[in-house]
């Protein structure tokens, strides 16, 4: 299990397009990947799940991966969050 904590840094928060980017990135890995906000923990390969989190600007999110390629998965998602989903 690898974990990382990221902060949403694009103004609009996680709306449909960033959610799709997260799912695309997560789906490249075989590991099970979750995103956690407060007490809500959802599957990072599910668009509706990610949108349900309601992650707005400044929200802190914990990325958790478990599986053979977990380190790569966590790093790739962290990089995606840090790139502000190519917005702003």
């Amino acid at each position: 299990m690898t974990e990382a904590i990221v902060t949403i840094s694009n103004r609009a928060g996680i709306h449909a397009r960033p959610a799709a980017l997260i799912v695309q990135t997560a789906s490249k890995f075989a590991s099970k990947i979750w995103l956690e906000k407060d007490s809500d923990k959802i599957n990072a390969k599910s668009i509706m799940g990610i949108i349900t989190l309601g992650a707005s600007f400044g929200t802190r999110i914990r990325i958790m991966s478990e599986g053979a390629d977990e380190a790569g998965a966590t790093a790739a998602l962290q990089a995606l969050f840090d790139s502000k989903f190519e917005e702003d």
Partner: protein
Amino acid sequence: MPTPDATRFTVLDLLDLNLNEQNALNLRCIGGRKGLSREITVPDLNRPGLALSGFYESFAWQRLQIFGRGENAYLKMLAESSNVEIYDKLFSYPIPCCIFTHNLAPSKEFFDAAERGDCPILQTDLSSSEFSSRVLRVLLDIFAPQTTIHGVLVEVYGIGILLTGDSGVGKSETALELIERGHRLVADDVVDIRCVNGSVLMGQGANKVIGHHMEIRGLGIINITHLFGVGAIRDKKQIQLVCGLEEWDANKVYDRIGTEEMTTEILGVHIPKLEIPVKPGRNIPIIIETAAMNERLKKMGYHSAKEFNQNVLRWLESENARALYFNRDDFL
């Protein structure tokens, strides 16, 4: 009912609850607004009669304090005899809130004491008994143990079925076909589950704003209510069967008879579970529909697989008996 902050349920959250007719609490805040951020920690009520008369032993200050006609009349009597230090004693406890029923309102002295103690005062037009039963029902629901599961909840022939499985196995597509066949969607992808009364699992969508939408590969996000009508959706439903969809694994032994019943545990409640292997050419929605009907039969006391086996056993036995009587030589 989802709470804005799952870890803390405040008096403001209680006021903000969006409840329909028979559950409406009709609450409004008439004083002590500073205390609206106070947390409600116990799903219970208290009538503070004894406390008002000065007896504070075992005073259940953590609960919502309900002031009905009796308590209000007593407060009025106290105010007339200007015995208001009792109010301050009451508000020295961090009471979550005081609720006046029958649209009653306390005296100004009581309001002032509440302001000093930062205790919100709420009012409702309901009677004390009606309000008590409603608020208890609502609070027990909010304080019920809950969890979130990745899956799709559908209602098929009246049975609440939770479809689970890994991403991409076809949960949403299966649900879409079921909706097309006249069944109902409760929640896609993220299902909030509450354990009510310790034995009933209620499932619902995590969020009203984005509820009843589905994500279908190749189509994107679709609105089920607009596409299939209001008859195709449902707000919440008891979970009565779990169907785990999984990629067909040639090495795994799947149930071929159905006399052994598997269950899965969610929040301490055991729910019947089926493992359904998925491969091209298998019509999963029809299997789910049949599973739902079979589940109803079981609830009515008719278990297809067991009944079938009993018939087989009875038949074999009678064949034995016939052999005994008619073909004695063959039998021996």
